[in-house]
């Protein structure tokens, strides 16, 4: 009886936490910060496209322009055909989209979405933060807005890791329980199964 009640509820705590990492309270900050970083990156892309003539920097002044017009940046544009700031903007928009999609129990119902969200936030976030530090050391100039987006990237990791961890732990527990690749595959893609529900509800705290 208790299990039925729990499985009707989208707002359950996800192990190993005693809260729901897929709740809007947890996800909205990610979306807001990602939206801010998207706008900042788009602004820098506008400069790289020369749709605007100047770029604002209250601390490093002209240095931002030398970062955005650097050799490294030009090489990236030759490779990818689009400015690197535009690619960054797309990545932050991805954080926003994948953060918005899914129910408040998506850690269980759509692990693929949470894993994709995690891949966009965590490895890409680390890469972008490292790139910004490299700019400072290799180009020899700093860019205030780039530093802001790098800080947001790291903040997003902090906000998002708990949900990704819950999803991975859930998949791992389904694997431990069944040792069946087929079940694991179906669970990953969000197909319902009794065993999935049992695993998810084992050890959850109700609040």
């Amino acid at each position, binding site marked *: 009886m208790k299990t039925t009640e729990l499985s009707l509820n989208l707002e359950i705590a996800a192990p190993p936490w005693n809260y729901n990492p897929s709740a809007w309270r947890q996800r909205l900050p990610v979306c807001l910060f990602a939206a801010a970083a998207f706008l900042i990156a788009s602004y820098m892309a506008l400069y790289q496209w020369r749709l605007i003539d100047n770029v604002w920097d209250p601390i490093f002044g002209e240095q931002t322009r030398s970062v955005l017009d650097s050799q490294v940046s030009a090489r990236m544009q030759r490779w990818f*055909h*689009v400015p690197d700031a535009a690619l960054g903007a*797309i990545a932050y*928009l*991805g954080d926003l*989209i994948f953060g918005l999609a*899914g129910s408040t129990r998506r850690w269980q*119902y759509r692990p693929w979405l949470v894993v994709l969200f995690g891949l966009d936030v965590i490895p890409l976030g680390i890469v972008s933060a490292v790139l910004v530090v490299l700019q400072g050391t290799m180009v020899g100039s700093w860019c205030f807005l780039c530093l802001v987006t790098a800080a947001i990237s790291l903040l997003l990791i902090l906000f998002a890791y708990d949900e990704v961890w819950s999803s991975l732990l859930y998949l791992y527990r389904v694997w431990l329980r069944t040792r069946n690749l087929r079940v694991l595959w179906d669970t990953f893609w*969000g197909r319902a199964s009794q065993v999935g529900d049992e695993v998810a509800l084992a050890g959850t705290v109700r609040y």
Partner: protein
Amino acid sequence: MWPRVVEVMLGCWLGMSPFIFRHNSYQRELWWNDLGCAFAVVTLSLLSFWRCCRAAHFGLCAVAIWLVAFGYAEAPVPAPPALQNDILVGMLLLMFAIIPNEANLPPRSWSDLRS
């Protein structure tokens, strides 16, 4: 259905792009590519509203990959704005296309299992 609505808007933007980026009349392949892809994007995303074709939006992945590949293959260095537009719209579409229709509800199989 919010991902589908955004896709329709992106399709409209793609349909306007030849006029915004001013393709020349001899750049036939650019005109055909943008207008054809725009038609495909709007059609596929609207079809997803229809119950029998609700998976139609996955077809957008193919259109999106085509747009990105076309942009990369056609573009000289530096890439002209029209082709950069194709690449970026393709990337955007790819992100939206994989989001389910009723993205903020649990998947149907879970609702069925619980009821």
